């Protein structure tokens, strides 16, 4: 198994003719991802990396059976692109784009939920089920198929974690970057629910950071409903309040979103929180060995 995407995923790349879209389409194809179509309005009929380009997502769904979308459209047009995918019936939408205004995301998040789709991101590296498919921009080669689920608000920090897991002989079922923005399509909890039901997944690594209360909510969910071992890391223990730490969502404001509070909330429900990132791989290995 694995969650959300696998060898049956048929991916449409929105913004395929752009620089990033083209580059990562090539990378995804190289990983073995089944990229069945690209979309760039007005460029229908072209080919990019051998992939047919269409004018509309609906065409990619009708003609190529696309069921997953990966979006590389610039921030000003990305909300429209996400909604187009959701309206066309795409059920898993991965939005890589960074810099979408928050109030646009208010509308997008509600729209996508109404359509019954799952939005990963925006401002995220995407999602990979190692050995099956990669829908996003993460370096595929550091992953290995296995039993660990990874959910993260960060990009390169996730690569770091995955690299340590792989080096500790812990492969991954699915790794999801949920995005670093204040409003994102899906939360830790949405994916924990899926990992709970996924037999391939035997343990989960949560990678949080300052800002918001998503980690606290995840802790509460895990306490009440999640039955597999969870290991967590929270970035930003040394971040000053009131400053936006790169990610639009990584800001301690109004006394909320501090790393200490998150760590405390997680520890309070019995989750192991790694304080030194360098030790994450080893700690994960110990925990999983203890199962």
């Amino acid at each position, binding site marked *: 198994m694995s969650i959300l995407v696998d060898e049956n995923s048929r991916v449409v790349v929105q913004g395929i003719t752009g620089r990033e879209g083209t580059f990562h389409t090539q990378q995804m194809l190289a990983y073995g991802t089944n990229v069945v179509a690209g979309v760039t309005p007005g460029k229908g009929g072209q080919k990019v990396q051998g992939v047919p380009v269409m004018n509309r997502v609906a065409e990619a769904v009708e003609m190529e059976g696309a069921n997953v979308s990966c979006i590389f459209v610039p921030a000003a047009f990305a909300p429209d692109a996400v909604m187009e995918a959701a309206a066309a019936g795409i059920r898993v939408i991965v939005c890589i784009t960074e810099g979408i205004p928050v*109030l646009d995301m208010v509308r997008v998040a509600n729209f996508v939920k109404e359509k019954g789709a799952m939005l990963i991101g925006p401002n995220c590296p995407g999602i990979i089920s190692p050995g099956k498919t990669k829908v996003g921009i993460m370096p595929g080669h550091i992953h290995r198929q296995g039993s660990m689920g990874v959910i993260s608000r960060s990009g390169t*920090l996730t690569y770091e974690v995955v690299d340590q897991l792989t080096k500790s002989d812990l492969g991954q079922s699915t790794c999801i970057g949920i995005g670093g923005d204040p409003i994102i399509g899906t939360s830790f909890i949405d994916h924990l629910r899926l990992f709970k039901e996924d037999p391939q997944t035997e343990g989960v690594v949560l990678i949080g950071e300052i800002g918001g209360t998503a980690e606290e909510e995840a802790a509460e969910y895990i306490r009440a409903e999640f039955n597999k071992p969870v290991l967590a890391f929270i970035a930003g223990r040394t971040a000053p309040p009131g400053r936006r730490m790169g990610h639009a969502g990584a800001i301690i404001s109004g006394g909320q979103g501090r790393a200490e509070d998150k760590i405390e909330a997680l520890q309070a429900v019995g989750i192991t929180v790694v*304080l030194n990132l360098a030790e994450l791989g080893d700690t994960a290995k110990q925990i999983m060995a203890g199962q």
Partner: protein
Amino acid sequence: MKLHEYQAKELFQKAGIPVPKGRLLTSRDKLGSVLEEVPGPPWVIKAQVHAGGRGKGGGVRLVKGQGEAAEAVAELLEKPLVTPQTTAEGVIVHQLLVEEGVDIDKEFYLGMTVDRKLACPTMIFSPSGGMEIEEVAKQSPDLIFKEPVNPATGWMPYQARNLIYKLSQVPGGSTVKELSSTMKKIYDLFVANDCSLLEINPLVITKQGSVIALDAKMTIDDNALYRHKDLAQLDDPREKDPLEVLAEAASLNYIRLNGNIGAMVNGAGLAMATMDVIKLAGAEPANFLDVGGGASEEMITKGFEIILKDERVRAILINIFGGILRCDVLARGVLEAAKKTDIDVPLIVRLEGTNVEEGRKILEESDLDFLVARDMAEAAELVAKEVKRQG
């Protein structure tokens, strides 16, 4: 992007939200003419700085005459103001807002922000005006009333009633109408300007029963500035660290901190984690620097130069996990920067990911003096060692 109080109040006025009559003062000479235009005495003289806690730092003065006004201006204008949210040196006050005094009957807090969990704008109202809302939240959370706004309908009149009629002392009918209308305008202003925060603290009812916004705080969503050219022009770079202004121009995410270990990282999360590792190793990070996922050689060079410009920096840690950003690009950027500036502090480099071998080779074959860390653990150890060595 933060607006100054006087800038926010101008927007308030255009939107029909009542504010006290006032004028901006940027030079001592103009005080006389400004006082003539502003009804009073009494007047209120308010330092226009972005740092919070301005009142506690003495940045807001009630003056009863021209003499007192001149004294206050002399003490504030072009002088450093220290507040609980500034460094010990404080920030220089370049502008003062001179306003009429208002006969206050009651003080409220009225704010709007985006609720991340509910994914919608949310109005916050409290009868505990004048206090910091975080304090109210801690001490008497039952005095904080919230109304999330459904984006499909926008702010509805019943929501104002839900907030106002929760007050233990409901004001008179016309005041209720004014409060309700102010709430509607605040929502419209919030949405029209892509705010991430909008606060009136205090929003007051005067002895005459009118509603007036005594203070005004507005923060604009940086991501939305592209569609608000007018607002973007209100940015005041004097309020920022000069190195941060440089970084912004180069599209780098850089935040200056108080430590002495410079750090260059790709990715915000990894950059924060790197700061944390530096701290764990017993040192203090001098900055947060995320060069981003798709950084070019030029951006790397620029970022490295900015770190070197910070004279407090005693060692530099480069921590790159190549994804989109390839390690060879990083290496070439660093070498380019080294050509332009003398690197007189120890450099610790940790590379991983895409094109890592090529990147390491480029660095090794250069005449750059640096230490290699194989992983985060080793990087932390080397940083700690440097800190100890320098004592």
